């Protein structure tokens, strides 16, 4: 028969706690899958050097991208009611030191006035997507803008905090390289994940930051540049992050959990067998 009330009490109490802990763990709802509204740019980790100078590098083929719709800038004067570029595709990579973001979009003509920009929130205070314009009830922060122009073939590192405050930073940390082919622009922006410049966005792998896009079609229409300055295609904020390297310690904990559960079973079964064979 059963061996002593005491050890049975112990076992049933242990079992009770097991069930309690187990059911509360079980109750942690599974994470929701990524919804369309939560699209983001993910900079995937690569080994070695990044394709910073080559928008056509095959390294980009291995990385998934996301697409973001653009709107004609009708938020603030000077407005524009129609723009050439309706969406951009963005891909990102990093190697723990440096990052590169590829922006790809359709533009039927290659023009001197073509340009593309990325905007980031800087620091902890939220910044309005329109150049960090003043908010009335919330204290906002500045933005960092990486502005690539076809004409110069370069990207400029800029800052703004409010309309009409956009300026080139004293310290330049960003590189840009664009290639136009068969009606498609591919522009690569690159930078170190972290810089010494407090006007810059600092990228920490695993941390979500906010990014927005702007594109100008510099085509000449009726003798005028079609899109320039505030007249551009824009997006509001989206999330971006450098993917953290896989945390293998989790698997250690999983194995420990497995082993403890198995050991617990072993002890119980042996105890029961002893009890019953006596």
């Amino acid at each position, binding site marked *: 028969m059963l061996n002593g009330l005491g050890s049975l009490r112990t076992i049933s109490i242990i079992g009770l706690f097991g069930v309690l802990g187990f*059911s509360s763990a079980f109750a942690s709802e599974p994470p929701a899958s990524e919804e369309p509204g939560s699209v983001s740019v993910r900079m995937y980790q690569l080994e070695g050097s990044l394709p910073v100078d080559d928008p056509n590098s095959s390294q980009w083929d291995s990385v998934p991208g996301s697409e973001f719709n653009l709107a004609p800038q009708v938020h603030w004067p000077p407005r524009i009611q129609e723009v050439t570029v309706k969406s951009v595709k963005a891909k990102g990579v990093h190697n723990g030191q440096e990052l590169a973001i590829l922006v790809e979009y359709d533009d039927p003509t290659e023009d001197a006035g073509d340009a593309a920009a990325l905007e980031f929130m800087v620091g902890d205070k939220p910044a309005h997507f329109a150049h960090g314009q003043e908010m009335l009830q919330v204290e906002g922060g500045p933005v960092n803008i990486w502005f690539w122009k076809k004409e110069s073939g370069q990207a400029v590192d800029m800052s703004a905090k409010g309309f009409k405050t956009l300026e080139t930073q004293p310290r330049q940390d960003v590189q840009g390289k664009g290639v136009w082919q068969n009606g498609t622009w591919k522009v690569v922006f690159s930078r170190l994940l972290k810089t010494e410049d407090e006007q810059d966005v600092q990228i920490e792998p695993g941390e979500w930051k906010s990014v927005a896009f702007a594109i100008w079609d510099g085509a000449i229409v009726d003798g005028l540049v079609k899109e320039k300055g505030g007249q551009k295609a824009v997006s509001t904020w989206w999330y971006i992050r450098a993917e953290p390297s896989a945390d293998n310690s989790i698997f250690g904990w999983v194995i420990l959990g497995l082993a403890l559960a198995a050991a617990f079973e072993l002890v119980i079964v042996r105890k029961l067998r002893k009890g019953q064979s006596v």
Partner: protein
Amino acid sequence: MKGPIISGAVILAGVFIFLKFLLPLFTAPLPASLIYLYLALALSGIMIYGTMSAPSLEAMMGPVYRFLSGQGQSGMGHMARLAVLVMFPLLVGWQTYSSLAPSDLPPAENRTIHPAPPGEFVGLSNPYPKTPENIMMGKGLYAAYCSPCHGANFDGKGTAAPGFNPPPADFTDPGTIAQLQEAYLFWRIKKGGVGLPVEGMPWKSAMPRWEEELPEEFIWKIIMGEYDGAHQSPRTWEEEE
């Protein structure tokens, strides 16, 4: 011998059915975690009752212990015991993984769509009479200034709308202006997205701050045109509790 186990299982099933299916008929459904907690409490109650004396302990736990120890088992019983012994560590491993794995998703957005307006905008009423001329003027201004985002049909589907997150409000949706008073719209149109309090996430909103461009008269008339065009009417003071 099997009696106490079966009645325990019946009690647990009853508690589950009550919490999961009957209670929501009268009130909001319980979150899964709470249901599990109550089930665990019910289970511990059953266990305590069942282990109060040696005979009741034997009646309740004996079959369980014999099942787990595996003695004298064969066929189905043997397989079931193996399955339980294998599944338990796997479930623990899976739970460990899912509770430790870092979330891979962007931060959740809990934007409050209709936050409280600043005090000075509470209780204002439209100073312009709802004449056909005023409504027509409001609709004309709406077409010029608002339709690129909110749509010529007041449905939020303007040509610029797809680029903005959050999207421009759909005024034909009963969840937008039909819920609001004219004074609230006056605030939102005047101060725009940047006028929202922190819970409205003003940094994301493309809604312009129209006080910079439009006189108050235009804003009040646009409000009339907006309600008329969207076939909605403003919420009035009498409806407030």
